[in-house]
Structures are given as structure tokens and as C-alpha cells.
């Protein structure tokens, strides 16, 4: 327990979390600090490339086995199932309209790759090993939640008046989701890392390994600014029950992820990462998909909740909790 508290303390005082806090505070204080959009985009691309590539290298070293396949399957099931749970919870504890509830639920089934990166950084700092192929699990968990959201939309009758319109653009929507830039880069970098293996990593380690934590700090500074701005602007749309959902739902997802890891037999680090993935909420792939699929849903709610409540919670307090869950569930 003492170790866990130490880990929680060191996580809160780690450079990535402190840079996030700096951005968050600067945004609340209405500072003119900002990261230009092109720079933020480049940082995001770098992180996806580095995470995907290193994950591919880890699979090349580890090789394919049933545990890897089981973990991929668990990731898909978690991503597809969590939106149904989140939707039910939202309908019980909040008075959100159905379209908004569906859009919010989709975000919680999908994942946050930066939360994943922060979690791997904590594990690396703590010297806890994990299965490198978890990054492949992150990639497959991006989209099943969107499928579930569209099913929820149909079953809940939230979008009945738009049925014809929605069907007409369904194939286009799926093409756009499948070719979403972040998914293409993460998956592509993973495959390249897998194909080139340790030798490929040796060739570009100076780019994808050494600067990673520094780039993560700069990206989290920007995320802090965006989250703070989102909270400021979305505060009037976020009721107390909704904020409570933004904190409780990741914990439920974390428990489900850790439970799946225990069944599969992942290591403590692997269980922690699967819990983190199940606990995190998307703010890149799903918001864009929701704008296309459910334009009536308000981004001021789902982006503010995902970026302004759940992301900061996971980054500061959630990750130590998921380390505990990983220790309990891991073999």
C-alpha cells in the first residue's frame, strides 16, 4: 500500500502531469499561452507513430500466441460493450437527451492514446514490465464503440427522423471512420514496427524512444490548455451528475478491463494497461465520427466531459488506481 501511495504521489509530481496542470491552470487564468494548431497536430502524429511503432516491435519480439489473440478479442468486446453500459448509466443518473447520451457513451467505449502513453510512461518509470502488444489492443479498441453507438442510436429511436438520411451516408461514414488519420497512422506504424522489429527500432530509436517523454510533456501542455478551455466553455452544459459520470465511468471501465486481464492471465503491467484503455475516453477519433454520424449531439457536452473531466481524472488519480487494479488482477 505504501508503494502504491508513493506511486500516486510520484505520478502527480511527474513532468507530464505537471505540464498538463500548467496548461489547465493557464487556460483557467485566461493566459494567452497557446500551442499553434499545426504544432499540436505534429505532436499528436509523433506520439501515434512512436507508440504504434514500439508496439509493433514488441509483438515482433514476443511473437503471436493465444494470449495476444485473447487480449485483442477482449479489447474489442470491452470497446463494444462499454457504450451500452455507459448509455444505461447516463439515462439513469442524468437527464441528457438520447442523442447526447449515445454520443457520450461512444467516447467511453473508445480509448485515449495519450492516457495510454502516460500509463506506459508510469510503468516504465516504476520498472513494471508489460506486454508490448497492448498497443495493438489500443488500435482495435478505437472503433467498435462507434459501431455500438450507431446500434444504440437505432435501437433507442433517438434518430428516427433521420433514418433515411443516415442510411444514405452509412457507407461513406464507415469509409471515413476506417480511414481516420489517427487510426491509419497508429495501425500503420504498428505494422512497420512489427515488420522491421528490433533492427528497425535500433535505426530510429533516437527519434521514437529518446524524445518521447519530452514530446509527451509538450503535448500534455496543449491538452491542458484544451481541457481547461473545454471546461470553461462547457461548464454550463455539464451538470453535477454528468461530472460524476465522467469520474465513475472510467472506474467501472477500469474494473472491467482488469477483470478481463485476470481471465486472460496478463501480467500486472499488462492488466494495468488494459484497465487504463477500458477506463479512458476518446477525444480524437470518436468526436469526428460523432460529428458525421450524430450531428445533433452537442460537442460541448461530449468533448468537455471527455477532455475536461475524464482525461484529467485518469491522468492524475485514475492511473494510480489502475496500477492497483493491475496488481490485483495481474498474474
Amino acid at each position, binding site marked *: 500500500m505504501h508503494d502504491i501511495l508513493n506511486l500516486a504521489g510520484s505520478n502527480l509530481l511527474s513532468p507530464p502531469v505537471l505540464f498538463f496542470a500548467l496548461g489547465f491552470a493557464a487556460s483557467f487564468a485566461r493566459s494567452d499561452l*497557446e*500551442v*499553434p*494548431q499545426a504544432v*499540436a497536430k505534429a505532436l*499528436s502524429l509523433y506520439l501515434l507513430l512512436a507508440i504504434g511503432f514500439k508496439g509493433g516491435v514488441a509483438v515482433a519480439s514476443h511473437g503471436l500466441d493465444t494470449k495476444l489473440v485473447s487480449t485483442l478479442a477482449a479489447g474489442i468486446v470491452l470497446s463494444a460493450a462499454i457504450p451500452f453500459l455507459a448509455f444505461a448509466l447516463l439515462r439513469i443518473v442524468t437527464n441528457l437527451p438520447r442523442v447526447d447520451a449515445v454520443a457520450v457513451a461512444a467516447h467511453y467505449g473508445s480509448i485515449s492514446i495519450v492516457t495510454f502513453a502516460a500509463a506506459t510512461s508510469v510503468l516504465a518509470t516504476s520498472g513494471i514490465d508489460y506486454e508490448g502488444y497492448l498497443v495493438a489492443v489500443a488500435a482495435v479498441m478505437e472503433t467498435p464503440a462507434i459501431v455500438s453507438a450507431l446500434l444504440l442510436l437505432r435501437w433507442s429511436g433517438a434518430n428516427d427522423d*433521420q433514418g433515411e*438520411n443516415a442510411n444514405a*451516408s452509412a457507407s*461513406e461514414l464507415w469509409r*471515413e471512420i476506417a480511414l481516420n488519420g489517427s487510426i491509419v497512422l497508429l495501425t500503420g506504424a504498428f505494422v512497420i514496427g512489427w515488420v522491421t522489429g528490433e533492427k528497425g527500432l535500433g535505426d530510429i530509436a533516437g527519434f521514437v524512444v529518446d524524445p518521447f517523454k519530452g514530446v509527451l510533456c509538450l503535448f500534455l501542455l*496543449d*491538452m491542458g*490548455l*484544451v481541457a481547461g*478551455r473545454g471546461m470553461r*466553455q462547457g461548464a454550463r452544459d455539464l451538470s453535477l451528475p454528468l461530472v460524476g459520470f465522467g469520474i465513475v465511468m472510467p472506474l467501472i471501465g477500469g474494473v472491467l478491463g482488469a477483470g478481463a486481464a485476470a481471465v486472460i492471465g496478463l501480467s500486472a503491467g499488462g492488466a494495468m494497461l488494459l484497465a487504463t484503455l477500458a477506463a479512458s475516453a476518446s*477525444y*480524437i477519433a470518436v*468526436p*469526428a465520427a*460523432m*460529428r*458525421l454520424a450524430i*450531428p*445533433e449531439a*452537442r*460537442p*460541448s457536452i461530449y*468533448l468537455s466531459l471527455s477532455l475536461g473531466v475524464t482525461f484529467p481524472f485518469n491522468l492524475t488519480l485514475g492511473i494510480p488506481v489502475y496500477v492497483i487494479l493491475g496488481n490485483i488482477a495481474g498474474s
Partner: protein
Amino acid sequence: METFAKKRLEAFIESPVLHRFIGILESQGVRGYSVLPVVSGSGSDGVWSREGSVTAAGQMVAVVCIVSPEALEPLLDKAFAMLSRHMGIVSVSDCEVMRGDRF
């Protein structure tokens, strides 16, 4: 110098639907258009800004094109069918161009 009367269509649309909107322009035979970034703004659906955004969901773009008056109506019908559920503004104004055969 002789000039020709045309219609100037200006659409402020959500960034995620840009490709769809361009698809409509191209399917209607519009050969030229420009896409401009919208730095920030505010409307009935809230505020938006390009700075620091990690997702295209909170961003807007402007699309400007000039079309012949007879091409305008079918183009607007298609654009409305696609954009009616989304945030944004489409406006049309009269303009004069020097090379009328290009539009």
C-alpha cells in the same frame, strides 16, 4: 472590360464534413473552389477555435466557389440535404468575373 454575372457561394462548415461537401461540389461539376481555415468564432451552437485542437470535431472551415446562376439551384439542393443537420452557414451573393467561360 466586359464582365459576367455569376453567383458566389460561401459555406462555413464543420471540418469533419469538408470531404463530403467537396464531393458534392465535384459531383455538380464545380471545377474550382477554395478551402480556407477559420481561426475561431462563435455561433448559435457555441464557440470554436483551431488553436491547439486535437480533433477536427471542434473546427470549422470556409469553402468559397463561384458558379453560374443556372448551376446554383441544384448545387444548393444537394448542399442543403447534406448540411441541414450540421452546424454552419451557407450564403450566396452576386458577383462579376472577367472570364465567364471558366465558371
